[in-house]
């Protein structure tokens, strides 16, 4: 089986090499990366993997077009790189399968299905002591129920992997994939996506400012932009990061858990281990899978509210036409 990874990246020099090394050690055979106007050394890092023939870099610029870029890469994986399976990633995401390697769990998907979803597990910022992010960010959210705050970076969500298909379409953020060839296998999550969205005040500010002005200004980015414009980045970031007292409280009520999986995997890679990235089962998966389902019901209801507004406008127009 050939496993290809797609990657959308912009100015993530602090994490991108670890992300690529991790996935190459976890069974990924080749990476296609859309490099969006990076200026912080990310491009040079990507070029080093190009030289080693592990990666194809696609320079992209201008307004962010997340879905189309991901779709283009996923199709290239099928048409030009002989992929059997494709995982769609961001630079701050690490796919970690459970119980077996990534390739093994994907090979276990029934032939009748071709799209599966990994469960995102969000890691929280910890006090910055100058160490590498994976060494200090070892706490993640494990909310009992979904946090449905549209401005929260910790809303439950899924990331799509799929069998290679020249006609596949990937959504914004790669939360869904659609294919005329392959139906999706829902409610079974073969892997976790360990997600490290915010790692330092500077990175939070830069990412937020950029994305708030992009094609889909999520509330979490608008919040960072407002903080930056008001000169309050440090204060607001403090509310995001989890100090020891919050950690203690979160562990007691089960909303936070300590998770060393990525730290240990990266340490093993640095020591030359042939670590395949397969993580152990954790019971939180069950409740977090339920939270994803509940969050999806909320998303659907909110979407339906939008349809209702359009419907009401149509009814009003019809009424006015009849009245004439």
């Amino acid at each position, binding site marked *: 089986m050939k496993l290809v990874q797609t990657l959308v990246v912009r100015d993530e020099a602090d994490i991108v090499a670890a992300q690529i090394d991790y996935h190459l050690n976890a069974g990924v055979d080749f990476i296609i990366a859309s490099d969006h106007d990076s200026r912080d050394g990310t491009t040079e890092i990507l070029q080093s993997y190009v030289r080693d023939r592990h990666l194809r870099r696609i320079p992209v610029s201008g307004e962010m077009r997340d879905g189309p870029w991901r779709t283009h890469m996923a199709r290239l994986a099928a048409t030009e790189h002989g992929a059997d399976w494709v995982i769609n990633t961001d630079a701050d995401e690490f796919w970690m399968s459970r119980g077996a390697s990534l390739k093994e769990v994907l090979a276990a998907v029934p032939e009748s299905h071709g799209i599966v979803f990994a469960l995102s597990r969000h890691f*929280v910022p910890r006090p910055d002591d100058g160490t590498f992010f994976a060494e200090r960010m070892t706490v993640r*959210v494990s*909310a*009992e*129920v*979904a*946090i*449905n*705050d*549209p*401005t*929260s970076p*910790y809303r439950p969500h899924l990331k799509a992997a799929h069998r290679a298909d020249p006609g596949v379409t990937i959504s914004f953020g790669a939360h869904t994939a659609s294919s005329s060839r392959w139906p999706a296998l829902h409610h079974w999550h073969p892997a976790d996506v360990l997600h490290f969205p915010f790692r330092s005040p500077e990175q939070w500010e830069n990412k937020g400012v950029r994305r708030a002005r992009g094609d889909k200004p*999520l*509330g979490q980015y*608008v*919040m960072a932009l*407002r903080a930056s414009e008001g000169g309050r980045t440090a204060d*607001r970031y403090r*509310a*995001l990061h*989890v100090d020891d007292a*919050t950690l203690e*409280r*979160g562990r007691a*009520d089960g*909303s*936070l858990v300590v998770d060393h999986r990525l730290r240990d995997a990266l340490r093993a890679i640095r020591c030359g281990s042939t670590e395949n990235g397969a993580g152990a089962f954790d019971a939180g998966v069950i409740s977090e899978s339920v939270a994803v389902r*509940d969050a999806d*019901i*909320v998303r*659907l*209801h*909110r979407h*339906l*509210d*939008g*349809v*209702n*507004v359009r*419907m*009401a*406008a*149509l*009814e009003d127009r*019809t009424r006015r036409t*009849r009245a004439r």
Partner: protein
Amino acid sequence: MMLVMTLVVDDAADALDVHLAFHLNAGVDFVIASDSGLHDDTREILETYSGEGCLRIFPTRGAEETSLLTGMARLAVAEHGADWVVPSSTHEFWWPRGESLKDVLAVIPERYAIVQALVRTVPARRREGQFIGEDWTARSSLLAPSSGERPQTPQRLLRPVYRAGPEMIVDPEDWTLGGRRVPLRAWYPIEVFDVSQVAPGADGDAAFDDLIARGELVVDTRLRDALRTLRVAGTGRFALPTEGRCRLAFPVPNIADDASYAVECAAVGEVDLVSLDAQIRELELRIAALEARFGPRVRRALRRLARRRS
């Protein structure tokens, strides 16, 4: 961003003063307050704030509720440039889960026209001579053991805040105007402390303590503590923002706070498969009604076209 509060005033002068001071320090820029023939002492407070330039009195004698609320909201838009309107009464204190009310509302995605606030009932048990707000130290919880025994419609547990528009209608019974406005469901970035109720078992602290011990009430001193910081010593009055800077610093919830709040938001029961199913069925009926209207018209148009061609 301009945040205007429309306030239906009743005759409770001391509550009015603390209410206005709290909200003007919580991010509200301007207040439009109804006057339906108030007592002199209440009117005097309104005139004091009006003199400060942060309040306008809206005469309302005899107005029906929807037209009163709508009138005040439209005035907020037309003459005060409101982006958001908070319709309040004097016993409601709107507490942002963020740095200020403005800060919370500014990041709400454009598609949402209504933000809902979660009601917290704060039973009052004020003693003779005590400052107002000193007794506001506990509130209801949706996780109380008996909350499941008293099922309430989600709307009774929530209050709306509206994104402003020149032709907006504020209907207290139908916030979305039959689905014409999109509410932010299942997450409530503002809490409303409702201080209108007298504590159950108000005959003594023992009954109150018992409610806390049984988890029917939870200790929550946020409102009392905030009001203490606003009190101007020796005057019995409350401080207003200076040079546009609010005096209240609201704590921004961290992830552990949000995780625990999410459990209460879920307990409101606004979104589940049953309500989703009901909404889809209602939509189907409306589509069927439109089809029934359009079908004959389309057929008639086709017949006319066919006749012309023949």
